[in-house]
């Protein structure tokens, strides 16, 4: 405990809270920009409700894990930090999994497997490694909230597009008595929606005159 005091000199000043909260939405969106945590983004987003629940679960796991790591980082041995981060994430995922099953059994029946699989998300452990292990509680929490909100935003956006266009409804309430583009709620629809949204984000970038970051990808 003594070899890494909380005010370690190596610590860089944390970015302002505003940046921490907002960068997850556009500049570093986990789904559209970093292409991380894609599995649920395609799998559970055929309705807004599922997307929101999944986003909320990821947000909770991200924030709780970031907070745990930020609080205990002095005590975590550097050589085994990755296994310990994994255990911390697995614990929070299990807790959230049980809570979801208890609170919202109907939605859970549909997306239960994907909530359990949050444990394998690269985005969460990378935030722990890159941010929470270096900064104190408040900025780490904000960083977690920002990334979680960015993910939730992406999930709800994809979910809304697919539900409105594919099923003609929002939040399960039918708008029109038809299914305009059945394709979008089919398995393939998630891929198409994300591909088009990524292209749209690139288009906005080009219009703003930013250099286009082709590729991305996790590795």
């Amino acid at each position, binding site marked *: 405990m003594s070899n890494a005091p909380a005010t370690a000199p190596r610590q860089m000043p944390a970015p302002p809270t505003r940046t921490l909260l907002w960068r997850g939405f556009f500049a570093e969106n986990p789904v559209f920009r970093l292409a991380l945590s894609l599995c649920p983004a395609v799998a559970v987003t055929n309705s807004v409700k599922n997307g929101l629940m999944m986003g909320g679960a990821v947000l909770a796991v991200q924030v709780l894990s970031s907070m745990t790591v930020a609080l205990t980082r002095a005590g975590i041995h550097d050589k085994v930090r990755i296994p310990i981060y994994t255990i911390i994430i*697995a614990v929070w995922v299990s807790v959230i999994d049980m809570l979801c099953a208890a609170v919202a059994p109907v939605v859970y029946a549909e997306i239960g*497997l994907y909530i359990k*699989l949050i444990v394998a998300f690269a985005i969460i452990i990378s935030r722990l490694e890159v941010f929470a292990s270096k900064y104190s509680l408040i900025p780490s929490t904000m960083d977690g909230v920002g990334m979680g909100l960015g993910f939730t935003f992406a999930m709800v956006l994809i979910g809304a597009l697919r539900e409105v266009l594919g099923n003609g409804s929002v939040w399960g309430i039918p708008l029109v008595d038809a299914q305009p583009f059945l394709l979008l709620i089919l398995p393939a629809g998630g*891929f*198409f929606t994300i591909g088009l949204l990524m292209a749209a984000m690139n288009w906005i970038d080009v219009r703003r005159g930013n250099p*286009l970051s082709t590729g991305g990808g996790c590795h």
Partner: protein
Amino acid sequence: MSRSGAVIDAHHLEVTLVGPGLPSVADLRLTTTGDPDIPLEIAEVLFAPEKTNTVIVTTATTLDTKGSYQLFHQATGQWYAIAPSLIGIVISLLLAAALVQNFVFTRYLGLCVFFGVSRKRDTAIGMGVTFTIVGFCSGLLAWVLDRYVLRPLSLHFLEIIVFIGVVACLVQMTDTIMKKLHRTLHKKFGIYVVLITTNCIILAVPLLNAMNASGFWESLALALGSGLGFALALFLMSCARERADLAPVPLIFRGLPIAFILAGLFALAFLGFSGLQV
């Protein structure tokens, strides 16, 4: 009761009897294994051509070629089990896991790694092979732990932490063993072994097995089928992406967006496999 017959088609099944003689229709009682109290209607019983002691039973009720049935011969008090062969079951489960329920295109799992390493055909093959082998081992190991430790002690709430531990240990072990035994192999495949931890398919397989309380052969088929399905998806995708790199793709679609559109097209094509029955 060992297997002594098979369903031929929707109205016929073949059974090898213990003794000679043709049983009468009234002497036989045919039921499904799940509903032994509800007899199915038998239309006639005939000797099978060119086989000793084997009869063909014709039923009035429609039979399921993948179902399991039991036949009771009242005169001899003998039970006969009629079921598809084990190899047949495993193969059909394997194909279901690899094609019908392909983990990438219909269950949308393992997408991070899928989009990350599908740029070049070589890397795709390397990842596919490595993943299939490690995924198979971890699936079986996790099944053993689930069946003989977690389930008897009702510790299933620890499944996430235990399964990820199994995967992490196995990946670390494979890496170390490969490094010590075969340096060239490690140079070629080492990087993929490390990447396996971030592939959620490897975690989804034991979770699905635990959720469905699968038996040994089902788990084996799912573990192998998921790996083969992932390898197939990766290979197909890498071929398509190598071509897309040469094509005049609009600027804003270059890179990942076009990869997603391609994956969507593959997913549509894989929709054609659903309903495939072996």
